[in-house]
């Protein structure tokens, strides 16, 4: 009985972890992309540099979502609370 409660709680926690972890970086990445596009529109010669910086910053923000995914994966596949 306790085992199924642990499993159910882990599954709910995993879902919430990924869902919540995607909110912040989603907003941040959209913001960054918007500013990058504005920069390119303002100065099309600088497109390569802007694209390089944009990709670098996107990867940093992506990492925050990945942290949530790692927690979710470890809850599902490497759960320390299940017997």
């Amino acid at each position, binding site marked *: 009985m306790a*085992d199924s409660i642990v499993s159910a709680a882990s599954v709910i926690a995993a879902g919430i972890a990924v869902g919540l972890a995607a909110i912040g970086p989603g907003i941040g990445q959209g913001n960054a992309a918007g500013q990058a596009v504005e920069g390119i529109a303002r100065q099309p010669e600088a497109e390569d540099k802007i694209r390089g910086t944009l990709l670098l910053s996107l990867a940093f923000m992506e990492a925050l979502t990945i942290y949530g*995914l790692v927690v979710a994966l470890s809850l599902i596949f*490497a*759960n320390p609370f299940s017997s």
Partner: protein
Amino acid sequence: MTSTLSFDYNPTISTLPLADLEVGKHFYWEVFGYSLHGQVFIVSWLVIGLILGASILATITLNQVPRNTWQNVMEVVVEYIQGIAKNQMGSNFAEWVPFVGTLFLFILISNWLGALVPWKLIHLPEGELAAPTNDINTTISLALSTSITYFYAGLKKRGFSYFKKYFQPTPVLLPINILEDFTKPLSLSFRLFGNILADELTVSVLTLLVPILIPLPIMILGLFASSIQALIFATLAAAYIGESVEGHH
């Protein structure tokens, strides 16, 4: 490794009789009482062999003006890595180019080998071959070596006045600066591990559900994202070393 619904210890999911998915099984080697992940070592040795082979091929006949095409290719790679190090470290970047280059090349080649080579053709007794960076141990060891390196760089360049860095810009930030020493390797390792494992799991699950054509866009995205992650790891390593050598500008 969960025991949901009291099935076997490592439940294997299978839908159509075309693909199976199992997570958590490793190929263990028992050496002197320690368990090692054999599959990580095998692919890591392959990656190291490839990088060493490329480097040896490029430097067999060294010319100022390269006549050997392989030397030409590797010079592009070395210049790119020098560019990364120089952007982050400023003037005295030359002695750290090997370290940054090793990080970049090892992570890039291991991620791409993990994604491109058909490992399933080689049959292991348990588990299967994949990118070595999908194991948290590999990425933690890379991140810890970066940590040790930037400590070593700071101490070598500035001696014990290196520890004044913790009190800048204000001593109020001392706990945060100390905490940063722990979060730097943590974030480095988890960023790389999470990206590679998430990509592999996504491709595996999609292959399990629809084995034809649908996993391809995710695989291409995985190739792109994993090369960006290699660049990020190397750039951050160079930035941390530069920060501890120069201090706050």
